[in-house]
């Protein structure tokens, strides 16, 4: 039993953190999100690739570094904390999950995995659990669900209509397309399990990002409370304000290990993985939503402005909490497990 990460894993996380502090400061992200149509920066993507982030899941034979879901979970916490948009996760984690599990002789797999690893390709992933597909206009390849089949299309094979989100980091599209024999790359018989694994990984990725977002909003709230003075002293010295922030810290403290257990379950393909990632996303989402609510309260009127950075992270938290399965979806998965006849519950069942 070892519930800690090894030194290499924590060192990698630390390196990513230091990198993002410099290269993805809020003012830089705002510039990209608010002034460009794509909301993405080729320059930032190249730098992320230099850090190895686009190669993380890609096997070594395709030019990647073949790391596990467990390594990703720490990275996703940092991506969440720094508000890195969805395209990186969609391309380098989710699309790679599908591509990795396609037959080895498939030309598409050999063609795209190395390009994703190098940071030279963005892949959009569409599944009906989300009504819209992210980053379609920038996508070099789309992997789309159709009755549990996987279809691969190029951008010009789909009709995409942008649908604005209040979260300025998001680029969402309504997509119309025709499945054909030539777009089909994986039949439903095999595709079903791959999509199932994809939903679990997307849920895990978002859970970890929501934890990162919760931590960011907590830090912003604490910073503001320590600096803002009223009645001649920092508002953070008042108990009512302290307790808002303490409640958020408690929620984060008890969501993080739930996310880590889910990451281990996904990595090891445990039969409980789906339930545990759903629990993880519910717990992390609850922490993030509470962090948003409490942090805006502590910020006062500043929290209600576009100017304060809090809104960037708050809106991402609201959006991600409902993406890849909203609370209704994930609660149903947990409750179906808990209420089933003979469910393994109670003391001693935690690591089954």
């Amino acid at each position, binding site marked *: *039993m*070892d*519930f*800690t*990460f*090894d030194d290499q894993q924590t060192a990698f996380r630390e390196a990513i953190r230091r990198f993002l502090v410099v290269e993805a400061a809020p003012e830089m992200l705002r510039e990209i999100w608010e002034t460009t149509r794509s909301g993405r920066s080729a320059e930032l993507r190249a730098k992320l690739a230099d850090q190895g982030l686009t190669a993380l899941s890609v096997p070594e034979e395709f030019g990647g570094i073949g790391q596990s879901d*467990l390594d990703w979970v720490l990275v996703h916490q940092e991506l969440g904390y720094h508000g890195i948009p969805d395209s990186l996760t969609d391309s380098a984690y989710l699309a790679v999950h599908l591509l990795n599990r396609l037959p080895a002789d498939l030309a598409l797999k050999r063609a795209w995995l190395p390009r994703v690893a190098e940071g030279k390709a963005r892949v959009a992933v569409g599944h009906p659990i989300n009504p819209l597909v992210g980053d379609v206009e920038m996508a070099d390849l789309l992997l789309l669900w159709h009755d549990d089949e996987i279809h691969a299309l190029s951008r010009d094979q789909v009709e995409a209509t942008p649908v604005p989100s209040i979260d300025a980091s998001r680029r969402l599209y309504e997509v119309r397309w025709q499945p054909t024999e030539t777009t089909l790359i994986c039949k439903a018989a095999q595709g079903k399990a791959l999509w199932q694994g994809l939903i679990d990984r997307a849920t895990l990725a978002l859970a970890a990002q929501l934890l990162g977002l919760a931590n960011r909003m*907590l830090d912003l709230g*604490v910073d503001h*409370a*320590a600096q803002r003075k009223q009645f001649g*002293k*920092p508002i*953070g*010295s*008042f*108990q009512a*304000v*302290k*307790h808002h*922030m*303490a*409640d958020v*810290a*408690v929620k984060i*403290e*008890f*969501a*993080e*290990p*739930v996310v*880590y*257990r889910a*990451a*281990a*379950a996904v990595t090891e393909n445990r039969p409980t993985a789906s339930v545990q990632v759903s*629990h993880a996303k*519910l*717990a992390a989402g609850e922490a993030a939503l509470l962090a948003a609510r409490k942090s805006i309260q502590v910020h006062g009127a500043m929290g209600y402005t576009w100017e304060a950075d809090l809104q960037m992270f708050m809106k991402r938290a609201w959006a991600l909490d409902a993406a890849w399965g909203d609370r209704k979806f994930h*609660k149903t998965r*947990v*409750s179906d497990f*808990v*209420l089933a006849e003979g*469910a393994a*519950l*109670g*003391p*001693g*069942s*935690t*690591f089954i």
Partner: protein
Amino acid sequence: MRLTYTERQKAFRSEIRSWLADNVPKTPLQSFDTEEGFEQHRQWEARLFSGRWSAVTWPEEMGGRGCDLIEWLIFEEEYWAANAPLRVNQNGVFLLAPTLMEYGTDEQKKRFLPRMAAGEDIWAQGWSEPGAGSDMAAIRCKAVRQGDHYVINGQKTWSTRAVWADWLFGLFRSDPDSTRHHGLSFVLVPLDTPGITIRPIKQLNGLPGFAEIFFDEVKVPVENRLGAEGKGWNIAMATAGFERGLMLRSPARFQQSARLLVDLYRRNRDVADADPSIRDAVIKAYMDAEAYTLATYRTACRLAKGGQIGAEASTNKIFWSELDLLIHETAMRILGPRGELVQHPVEAAAINGATHNWLDGFLFAQAGPIYAGTNEIQRNIIAERMLGLPRA
């Protein structure tokens, strides 16, 4: 990260499981807040000791098994799953003992620990006073040195188990001119010493679960002091750390309650589903019990690698006390008009023979956010020590 048990840990689990199967009383003991129930529970402690199960984390020479924290968690899981009796000597085994091992002399360890492990000495706590609750540094009860004795005068209150306990550990003002957290000493007091008057206090359930204690010229030998004179505050803080931290409320307790809640809900869906929010609360209770378990395993692993338990002890205390309320409030909502009934045999139904008195649990859950440092105090600690917010 490796979230699996070793072969040794699995063998340990089967060993305790089979011992409990052979030894846990078939009919539940009476409450340890009755005279007869207290003695029954003392005998149960002795039975545990006879199998070397009463203090598994202690060193072998003190009557324990030298278990690490993961083994302790496994022990607790099996203990709660087996519906074994509550631990009447919890104050001693889980709170005083770790403090004694850290601050006690060898002589004190030999004198107190084996008797504690065997259930021969049952311990009560003596912190609160009428004027010192959350503000514990306002303690006034004096223990003034006279030669080789301390002479204690004053009053303690809310002392759990004190009505029938043998000993009390607590903080006393050994320097009469001192203020706040200076000049306090940590003293161990036999409760049969002349000059001590114990007045039972009835709790919500009508039983005398705690007491107020009056000290009138009570003489206690100097060798009953734990640690240096005047340094009691730091020692008490260490005890409070154990209490809020890992040892006071093991996660298995809440996993077992949550599992019984799921069972209660499943058997009563015909009435419970009339309020759809009940199902949501049941699932939340299950998830939070898991979260508390996971956080505890994680802390145990961090400690095993040389980490320290810090302000996260305060997050624990808030989390388990609120979880306990959620579990029992939800049970009461399911039971509806039967909830108030002191005995409702219908709900004494069983999983592996486990029964749960929801009303008792509901009443006790009301105390959770208050004892062991109120949750407001814990939030202050989190805000100031974990988050670095300024003091008032």
